[in-house]
């Protein structure tokens, strides 16, 4: 059980990051009239045309969400080196693939329907989009003179991606993993070790402290619970980072946004639908929607897919979506009916893409693919839909087979 600080009692950190030659990108103001969200099709194409990139303000806030409760990742100058690595090591650019048979599947009896394109992030080195982030952060760490990388992982995918880049860049790699996850994913633990990483079992502990570092106030809450899973590993990782900040860079995992896991359904109480059902609180350093009961205690999320099993999944980007949800009435009812269908169709979506296109998607990706069943019938003829095929699903075949 955990207690969460309610938003009003927090102090906002001051802005400047004294360390370096690295600079912030210029922030552009988000215009509230625009409906555009990168993961959702709008029904008003003229609004979509006015879209601007949603950027945080200089404090890292999206309205009242987000914020620099932990030092933010900075944009780095050395694009050329990064581009070369993304091209020759990661294998970018990934194709934008016209999924002919999936498109056929969604054609209505009169032959009309949208055109489905898949952004093939499954083709990246390590089989998912995660490496993009890991590579850039490893380069960042080297530039900052860090020798030591820490990361947390749930199912092991982020751990393997992090260990991969550490091997490539010659950085010492430490992965924190929940004890339960380590047992379930023994093969991934082996893989990380082959790549030279040290994999540390999460030590269950309670640390409640506020640490002031330079200009930042970092709120660290490590969670004590019986589950020993990703959220515990995350807290442990933050604790390590705070202790070793001079030498250590924490490779944060940017997770999927847009489609949440509905678990056993939104009314069952057993789900991970943070955005739909959660309320505002702070966990792991960023204000976001959380699943909490009336006393402010965190409710355990539930989902078949380990990668979508924690609020930390959403915390990094929830600020963006949460702000939009608050500001834009159009989104809310839309979002509510979106998420409840996910569990029913996810496994079918996994199988459908395998059969129709010979691409086995990650179970996480299958959530987005499942949504096409709901979305496509509403789209005008010829609409171009781009779905992010965020990872490949070889790792998920065993799990999925049981439910097919």
């Amino acid at each position: 059980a955990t207690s969460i600080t309610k938003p009003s009692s927090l102090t906002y950190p001051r802005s400047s990051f004294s360390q370096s030659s690295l600079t912030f990108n210029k922030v552009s103001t988000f215009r509230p009239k625009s409906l555009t969200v990168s993961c959702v099709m709008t029904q008003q194409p003229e609004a979509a045309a006015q879209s601007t990139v949603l950027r945080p303000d200089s404090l890292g806030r999206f309205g009242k969400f987000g914020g620099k409760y932990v030092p933010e990742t900075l944009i780095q100058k050395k694009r050329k080196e990064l581009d070369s690595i993304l091209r020759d090591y990661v294998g970018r650019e990934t194709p934008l693939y016209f999924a002919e048979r999936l498109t056929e599947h969604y054609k209505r009896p009169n032959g009309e329907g949208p055109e489905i394109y898949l952004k093939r992030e499954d083709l990246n080195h390590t089989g998912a989009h995660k490496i993009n982030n890991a590579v850039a952060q490893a380069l960042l760490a080297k530039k900052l003179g860090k020798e030591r990388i820490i990361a947390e992982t749930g199912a092991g995918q982020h751990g393997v991606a992090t260990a991969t880049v550490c091997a490539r860049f010659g950085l010492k790699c430490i992965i924190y993993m929940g004890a339960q996850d380590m047992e379930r994913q023994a093969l991934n633990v082996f893989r990380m070790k082959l790549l030279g990483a040290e994999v540390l079992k999460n030590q269950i502990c309670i640390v409640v402290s506020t640490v002031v570092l330079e200009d930042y106030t970092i709120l660290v809450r490590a969670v004590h619970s019986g589950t020993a899973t990703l959220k515990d590993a995350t807290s442990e990782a933050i604790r390590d980072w705070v202790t070793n900040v001079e030498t250590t860079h924490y490779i944060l995992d940017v997770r999927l946004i847009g489609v949440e896991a509905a678990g056993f359904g939104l009314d069952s109480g057993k789900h991970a639908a943070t955005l739909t059902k959660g309320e505002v609180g702070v966990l792991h350093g960023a204000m976001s929607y959380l699943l909490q009961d009336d006393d402010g205690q965190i409710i355990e999320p539930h989902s078949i897919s380990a990668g979508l099993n924690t609020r930390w999944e959403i915390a990094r980007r929830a600020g963006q979506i949460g702000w939009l949800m608050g500001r834009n009435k159009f989104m809310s009812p839309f979002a509510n009916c979106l998420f409840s269908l996910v569990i029913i169709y996810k496994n079918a979506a996994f199988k459908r893409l395998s059969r129709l296109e010979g691409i086995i998607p990650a179970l996480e990706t299958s959530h987005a693919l499942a949504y096409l069943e709901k979305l496509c019938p509403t789209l005008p003829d010829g609409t171009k839909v781009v779905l992010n095929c965020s990872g490949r699903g070889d790792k998920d075949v065993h799990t999925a087979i049981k439910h097919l």
Partner: protein
Amino acid sequence: KKRISHTISTVSGEKNPIVGKFGSFGGKFVGEVLISPLAELESEFNSVLLDHDFKMEVETALRDYVGRETPLYHAQKLTDHYKNINGEGPEIYIKREDLSHGGSYKMNNVVAQAILAKRMGRKSIITATNMLRKPSNVQLMELLGAQVKPVEGSFQAAASESTREWISNLQTGYYLAGTAVGPHPIPTMVREFNSVIGKETRRQAMEKWGGSPDVLVACVGTGCNALGLFHEFVGDKNVRMIGVEGGGVGTNTGDQLHSASLVRGEVGVYHGAMCYLLQDEQGQITKTQSIASGLEFPGVSPELSFLKDAGRIECYTVTDQEALDAYKRVCRLEGIVPALEASHAFAYLEKLCPKLPHGAKVVVNCSGTGYNDATTVLNS
């Protein structure tokens, strides 16, 4: 000598082979019933090589579906590993076939043949594969919609059974050869569809260092991935080509099991083609063994057999242990997990690099990803 060099240039330049022979290797040693279907396949193959639409369709699929072109990656840490005390050594480049859809170079040939099969109006594809080592692959195949029929015995038995299946379905079925061993036009077809690897490498080498590679290294099972990389450069006398076969536990003693068809085999007929193969005194195919199941073929491509005899390629073996060490080395140094098959090519670098002049450009074909070999490595 003159005749050999003439034939090398024929091999390197050939687009429309008539006889399907590489010197005395290759050919069509098959029963009467297969002569006509093979002739039809050959005719279709020859015609698509000149067909712009076919080429465009294959190129689009290779680009958008398979994810080509694959990078030619400069492996700095592996390069540093092979530097001697003076800081001298070759430059190691890795051709990243592990990044292809499906995790290996095999998709190149499969995609092209599938498009060919559709053109021929065929409705079903028949092929043979080895399921013993990786039962999880069966689950994947079925998930993708395939019907998997188990066959008792080795890959040879599966190949024979699938040929029988094809013969009883000649109108609607298409036999998709996944190896470079078989009756003409199969070896040529499989090589041609894999040759994109070498063509890309030539272009990428020119972009990166303004020249050609000095040495090409690839593992050899039946020779598809090796030929895919080598074929483009056969006519370039200054490009060394090295094929590395599975040495199993070790080839020093005659009793020990391995899969070194080129290094230790003799000439014979295997799967309808004259080639090097592993056979005993009675001419029976011997049992093969390698930690890498993809290298466990007793026969090898007739074209590679010819190139070996002509002295154009060098062939060596590495042991299971050397391959395992190489797997771990590449993981640790580059964060790339090579297939156990490809690990054989990486293993040979240990012997090769100390002998190379400073700055020599070595391209190693990372023919597939070894992500799923982790269990084998763990158990070893």
